[in-house]
């Protein structure tokens, strides 16, 4: 039982990170219909910025906030400069652009920050609590709290503000949103900016749980976050959160309990996804598009 619980906590801790990157993916997918393959590398670059600040002696929480602000602006610039010109191109073209960004941003990070291992301090205290015979770290509690706040802020922004309404309008019908006076281009820029800021936050959460910050830090995270988003449904924020937790926990459990798979534990989340998508192609929480014409 204790072992099970401790694996559950590890799974939730990881799952929360997948969930927050998946949220960023969902944010961009919902507003622009684009699967942003560069989301992980954007987060990587942001995390290097965070690291740079802490390396200069800045407190880590302040470094994260500053890095989120810079990432927000960076995300807006990426949308305006790289995505806007291909906005109306075929989905394949856009996929290739985001894949190109994946490579370019990763290389740029290596060029600027080097390939050596960097240590990013955790924003959470290193307390451990004993719960039901196992240890629960402040790190895990902190991660869950950050995700909870993130979800709450996004919920209020999208459901309770005029700007959020405009976002949802652009996501649903770009043409009509322009006809009621919404600057759809600005909304798309803000969407990318927010996704980039969320990525910066996620990166600063996940990297301290890894041995070190290296150029490949976000790659497995991105894969699992894509899995989480696919599982939950690419258009559903709730799905991203649930999907992230399911993938995280399934991953941790496999690692612990199935010897034969402990080197290839990625198999299980993907088998799960395959199964879900066989029966619900739009993901667990994804909407089937119904339109009356």
């Amino acid at each position, binding site marked *: 039982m204790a072992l099970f619980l401790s694996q559950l906590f590890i799974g939730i801790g990881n799952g929360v990170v997948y969930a927050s990157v998946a949220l960023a993916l969902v944010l961009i997918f919902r507003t622009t219909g684009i699967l942003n393959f560069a989301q992980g590398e954007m987060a990587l670059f942001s995390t290097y910025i965070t690291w740079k600040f802490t390396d200069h002696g800045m407190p880590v929480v302040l470094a994260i906030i500053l890095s989120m602000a810079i990432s927000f602006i960076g995300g807006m610039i990426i949308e305006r400069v790289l995505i806007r010109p291909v906005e109306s191109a075929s989905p394949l073209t856009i996929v290739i652009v985001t894949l190109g960004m994946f490579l370019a941003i990763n290389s740029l990070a290596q060029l600027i920050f080097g390939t050596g291992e960097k240590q990013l301090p955790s924003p959470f205290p290193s307390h451990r609590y004993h719960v039901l015979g196992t240890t629960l770290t402040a790190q895990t509690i902190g991660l869950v709290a950050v995700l909870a706040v993130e979800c709450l802020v996004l919920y209020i922004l999208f459901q309770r503000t005029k700007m959020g309404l405009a976002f949802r309008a652009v996501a649903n019908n770009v043409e*009509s949103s322009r*006809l009621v006076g919404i600057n759809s281009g600005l909304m798309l820029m803000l969407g990318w900016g927010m996704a980039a800021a969320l990525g910066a936050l996620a990166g600063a959460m996940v990297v301290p749980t890894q041995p070190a910050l290296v150029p490949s830090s976000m790659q497995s995270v991105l894969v699992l976050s894509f899995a989480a988003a696919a599982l939950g449904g690419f258009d559903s924020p709730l799905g991203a959160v649930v999907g992230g937790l399911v993938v995280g926990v399934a991953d941790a459990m496999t690692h612990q309990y199935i010897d034969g798979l402990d080197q290839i534990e990625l198999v299980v989340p993907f088998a799960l996804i395959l199964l879900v998508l066989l029966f619900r192609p739009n993901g667990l929480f994804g909407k089937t598009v119904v339109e*009356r014409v």
Partner: protein
Amino acid sequence: MALLEIEGLTGGYGPVQVLHELDLEVGDGEVVVVLGANGAGKTTTLRAISGMISAKGRITLGGTSIVGKSPERVARLGVAHVPQGRGTFTDLTVEENLRLGGYARKGGVAEDVQRWFTTFPRLEERRTQQAGNLSGGEQQMLAIARGLMSRPRLLLLDEPSLGLAPLITQDLFQRLSAINEEMGTAMLIVEQNANLALAIAKRAYVLETGSIISSGPASEVQQDDAVRKAYLGY
């Protein structure tokens, strides 16, 4: 000076030119209908006015040029365009659709939402439902109310009767006429259902292959032999 003045308008989609030197006017508070066969350029004319396609020529709204302005700018200058197919925000609720109509306004949105709920009680019953689940007629009412939420100077309506049953269409045009009398909103209506549209319009234009071939008071256009044969079916 008329509210909307169009002179020598040309435009289309990429290399395909649809409009050829089109001239058209809508006066303050006037209801004007544009008749024409499929492909004559009716929808394109409306899209050129609201900035959805690039166009050349002169288009002024209350003396201000709106050629080359983005749709959101044109909307903020007082043009509400109810597109063909109604442009419903299908994933959003009925009430959110209405609130979006008043997006560019500073205040008074809640009052106006209530006003349209009073006018269209059917929409109020369904205020929290996804707008995509409304019937065609209800969606058309919603689209018109959404357009009027911005308190526009000019309402552009593209085939409002499309896909509606005859009785609902009749009701729709009566309501449009009532709204025009009550609020004084000018309307430019593109419509296949020529009889109903002409009945509420003050003037009419007939569009053929991107140019105006005839125009005049609605009652005269209705009597015109060529128009009757081509568009009225008797």
